[in-house]
């Protein structure tokens, strides 16, 4: 009955407002508006402490880059309907592996990186196989690997170097490529942008990206359409682990040391960045630009607060409110995006 009414209404031409509607419906729009809003607020409150300066800009971009490199592949997994929180342990595990191999054990950096990437890929593979074979939710599977890898990292660190951290200074060229600052921006910022470019191409331009959306939208239909669902999910877990390992290496190069403590804030930060960026938690929807903007927003709030007279502890509150607002907005955008035919807006 109601369907019939809606169909009747929608037969009216709606072309007149399509261009504006198109823009409003653009999924990254919410993330963009949010970022501009947060930026303006912090610019206003932090103007007297030079929030708007290259140094200020670099400050939160450096912070955001470390999250961003991890958040994008985690966002891919979210789009595919999965979650990966083991990144919180993979990052220190990779940093420690590289630090121990190339520091006290004096392996060449190239070989150390290769082994570290391989180790991360194995963890990602384990995540992926467990999730696809057992039907246990990926939240639980990666929670388990988070603690398992975290515990193993600590134990092995103590066995190999007798301490939970290790110092390692990368050779000059590697340091220049991975750790140095340029105009205040750390190398990780440039890597983040480069990686975003590559992954943008994969998610939005390549056929592979289409599969990610399809798998998150409806795994059963995706399988029927001939998409190798399990293989795709395993690859995404590997991608997330490998990108996280890379972020860990950048950290070692930048700070000349590695810590083995599990990086719990990273888990929340990546999820927040994705959700603020408009990724739908249940899968099937999200954009790379959104994730990028979401990460920037998070960076502004976490780091920009230091440029204002606002109490630092309040940044957590702001993030909490932001997250809620983002989730509510995502829902609205989704409705807008899918309701073009039903004419509900006129009611």
């Amino acid at each position, binding site marked *: *009955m109601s*369907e*019939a009414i*809606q*169909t009747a209404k*929608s*037969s009216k031409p709606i072309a007149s407002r399509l261009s504006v509607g198109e823009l409003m419906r653009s999924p990254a729009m919410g993330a963009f508006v949010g970022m501009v809003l947060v930026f303006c607020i912090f610019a206003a409150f932090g103007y007297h402490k030079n929030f708007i300066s290259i140094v200020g800009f670099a400050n939160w971009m450096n912070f955001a880059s470390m999250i961003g490199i991890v958040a994008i592949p985690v966002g891919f997994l979210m789009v595919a309907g999965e979650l990966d929180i083991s990144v919180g342990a993979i990052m220190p595990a990779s940093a420690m592996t590289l630090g121990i191999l190339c520091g006290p054990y004096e392996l060449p950096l190239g070989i150390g990186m290769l082994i570290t990437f391989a180790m991360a890929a194995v963890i990602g593979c384990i995540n992926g196989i467990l999730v696809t074979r057992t039907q246990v939710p990926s939240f639980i599977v990666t929670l388990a690997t988070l603690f398992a890898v975290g515990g193993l990292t600590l134990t092995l660190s103590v066995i190999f170097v007798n301490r939970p951290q290790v110092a390692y200074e990368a050779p000059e060229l590697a340091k220049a490529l991975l750790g140095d600052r340029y105009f205040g921006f750390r190398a990780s910022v440039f890597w983040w942008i480069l990686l975003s470019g590559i992954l943008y*191409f994969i998610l939005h*331009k*390549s*056929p592979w*990206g*289409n*599969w990610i*959306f*399809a798998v998150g*939208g*409806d795994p*059963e*239909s*995706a*399988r*029927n*359409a*001939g*998409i190798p669902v399990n293989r795709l999910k395993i690859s995404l877990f590997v991608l997330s682990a490998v990108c996280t390992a890379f972020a860990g290496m950048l950290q070692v190069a930048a700070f000349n040391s590695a810590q083995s403590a599990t990086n719990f804030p990273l888990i929340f930060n990546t999820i927040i960045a994705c959700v603020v960026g408009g990724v*739908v938690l249940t899968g*099937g*929807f999200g954009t790379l630009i959104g994730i990028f903007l979401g990460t920037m927003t998070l960076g502004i709030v976490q780091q920009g607060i230091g440029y204002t007279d606002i109490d630092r502890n309040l940044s957590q509150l702001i993030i909490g409110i932001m997250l809620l607002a983002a989730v509510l907005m995502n829902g609205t955008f*989704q409705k807008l*995006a*899918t*309701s*073009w*035919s*039903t004419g509900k807006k006129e009611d």
Partner: protein
Amino acid sequence: MNDAKTVLELRNVDKSFGPIDVLHKINLSVKAGEVLCLLGDNGAGKSTLIKTMAGVHAPTSGEILMDGKPVSFSGPKAAQEAGIACVHQFGGTFPLMSISRSFFAGVEPTKGWGPFKVFDRKKANEIAVHEVRNFGITRIDDGDRLVGGLSGGERQSLAIARAVYFGARVLILDEPTAALGVKQSAHVLRIVNEAKRRGLAVIFITHQVMHALAVGDHFAVLIRGAIAADFKQGEKTREEIADLMAGGESMADLEAKVGVQA
């Protein structure tokens, strides 16, 4: 239509899962340009039968013939390649994807070369919109629209248009009208007729007798895993079919039991 070729045939197909027999001696055939309606109550074995035809399950015994030749499918993909497409109740489409991306999920048209192959959005949009409009959904004119904005009937039609475009010769429709309102159901039934007109062999699974009678040429009633009746259009009335589906128990008895005033 009598001289049309039989496309898909099942001969004495049995299917059991361990000790549980689900299908017994199923004999069915469907010709090109014919709609076979498979009727059955919940639990009658419809799903298993569909899955057996669609290559998900291999029959325990008996054989499946396509164009008169015995075939065995290693999986749903193999059945699809042979031209058997299965459209599920809500299936085949992705609410938060665009119409064209959904249409080409898994078989994306690309341009470019090597690792730089990109999804050819323009081509995909053109084909998807053209194919869907050919099936009578003229409201769709932009392939970038999200599938979630379509009505249930339109989504079904999109899935059917997709299957036909990718070379389906046998279309298995699993309860396509079960969740739809009257108007939307009529929409889907029109699409079924269009598919039939194009010479597809359609297997239409439903428990709504009215919908079956509206499009069916040939009917089979499934009860507890066996074909209880097999008849042509016009050979049985709606009441007789409903009685058959209820397992021989007459609908009148049933109505008396639940106290419906007829």
